[in-house]
């Protein structure tokens, strides 16, 4: 049988065919996926591209020539600066608030068996199952009935309200895979509930919380409908765009959009790296 090495038969025919076919098929899928990704990226590319355009008229549709002016003087359009600042303020505050509240709810849902988990889950799920326009409208009704003036506060309230659910879902998903023994081990080693939470639970679910926060931020800064109903005389960036779209969207709008996009992407990338590192760590003891 040691001699078998010399008499090795040539690779049988069908296998080659099979291999080729498999190859083709795998790459068909790949090709399709690339196309799909292009489709996803196309509008974004357009937006970014035209942020460098120097339109002849007030209309930024046809490519004229490359310029950086729009970036250097991104706030050269009346109102845009305030709207961006407002959007950021709202996004930050509501994200922090919603993440805090949502994380606690998620913890309760995953960690504790208590009566009324069903209803709780439902209450968390419903806002996501309600069209934005209804959320916005009903909130507006509330504020009208309460004779509460719409403005910054009402936008904040609204955003927290619809971000919470997303936070809960995101954090919950990650918590499910969390090894309870780690916390027990901590308590076993003399840490009380609080120390355990700070030293063990928090560091381990931090990535989950972080990505939940990122998601929340994205949703908040992107929201038009609900804000449209409850903004009063305030103007967030999406509202500004809406207004601008009535006449002509200046390239500066593309600039801001591109900037938000790039920053968000950067944040996500960092988070992803962070995640995968944590992921590997978690597996270490799993």
């Amino acid at each position: 049988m040691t001699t078998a090495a010399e008499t090795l038969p040539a690779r049988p025919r069908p296998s080659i065919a099979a291999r080729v076919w498999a190859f083709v098929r795998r790459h068909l899928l790949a090709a399709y996926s690339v196309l799909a990704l292009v489709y996803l990226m196309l509008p974004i590319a357009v937006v970014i591209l035209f942020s460098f355009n120097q339109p002849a008229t007030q209309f930024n549709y046809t490519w004229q020539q490359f310029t950086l002016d729009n970036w250097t003087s991104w706030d050269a359009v009346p109102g845009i600066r305030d709207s961006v600042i407002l959007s950021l303020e709202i996004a930050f505050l509501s994200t922090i608030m919603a993440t805090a509240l949502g994380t606690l709810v998620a913890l309760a849902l995953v960690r504790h068996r208590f009566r009324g988990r069903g209803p709780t889950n439902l209450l968390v799920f419903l806002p996501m199952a309600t069209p934005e326009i209804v959320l916005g409208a009903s909130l507006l009704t509330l504020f009208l009935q309460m004779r509460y003036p719409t403005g910054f506060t009402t936008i904040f309230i609204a955003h927290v309200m619809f971000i919470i659910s997303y936070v809960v879902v995101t954090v919950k998903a990650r918590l499910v895979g969390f090894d309870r023994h780690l916390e027990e081990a901590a308590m076993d080693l003399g840490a009380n509930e609080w120390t355990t939470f700070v030293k063990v639970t928090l560091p381990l679910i931090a990535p989950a919380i972080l990505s939940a926060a990122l998601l929340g931020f994205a949703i908040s800064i992107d929201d038009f409908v609900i804000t449209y109903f409850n903004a009063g005389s305030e103007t967030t960036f999406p509202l500004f765009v809406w207004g601008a779209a009535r006449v002509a969207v200046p390239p500066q709008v593309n600039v801001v959009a591109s900037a938000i996009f790039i920053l968000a992407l950067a944040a996500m990338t960092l988070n992803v790296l962070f995640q995968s590192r944590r992921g590997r760590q978690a597996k270490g003891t799993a």
Partner: protein
Amino acid sequence: MTFIHRHRWLAPLLLLAPGLAWLAVFFVVPLGFLAYQSLQSGTFEQGYTFTWEFSNYRDAITGYDEQLVRSFLYAGIATVATLLISYPLVYWIAFHGGRWKNLLLLFIVAPFFVTYLIRTLAWQNILADQGPVVGFLRDIHVLSADGRLLATTVAVVSGITYNFLPFMALPLYVSLEQIDARLLEAAQDLYASKTKAFLRVTLPLSAPGIVAGTLLTFIPAAGDFINAQLLGTPNQYMIGNVIQSKFLELIDYPAAAALSFVLMGLIMISLLVYARAVGTEKLTG
């Protein structure tokens, strides 16, 4: 803290209280007010008074059946489209993405980070009558010489499809990513070709993702009005457009409120039907 330890049943309450309170006050209560308002009668000029005006609902349905049907039709088509577009892509990422997985995933969520309106405006620009896309389609005679995409149903539906694609793709990815590759090997070991293995194992196991994705896509799509507004014409207007204008322009609160509830109601009904089909636990997950 030892206190907590002794009264464990308290812990969940303390954790839940703030979040649920917020949802109760700013989600449930407003719906109550909306319901209240939907039963008022009167005009903007004379003001509105609560009179159990159930006819508002009848009027809402009879008066805007067109837009209602459209909303659910468009949302339905768009949902199916997102599924068809994103499934192969996500599948590829989950199973062939290797160490690029997370990066590729970023591409899928990327649209999230460009303001919804601007995304849509970008499409407005891409699909413009004088734009390259229409030009190309005219050249290959998919469109007639004076045919157009903008301000058509196609534009609106594809707008919705694009805007909600990530909502479908992400849950899909999660469920696909969790599938143990060894199950597929087992299937092939049991004489299932790659295709069969996909149909019999991968697909059923990704069902939860499909369910979640469908919900996250269909519901907001049914209530959307931006796409119809920016990419369509009055003939594409959806129920969202009506609610929006009744609320903010005509200030016809009762009608708007009634419409909102009709929309909600129809969505809930379709959810229940759907739940029947796929099992409830998958919905509230």
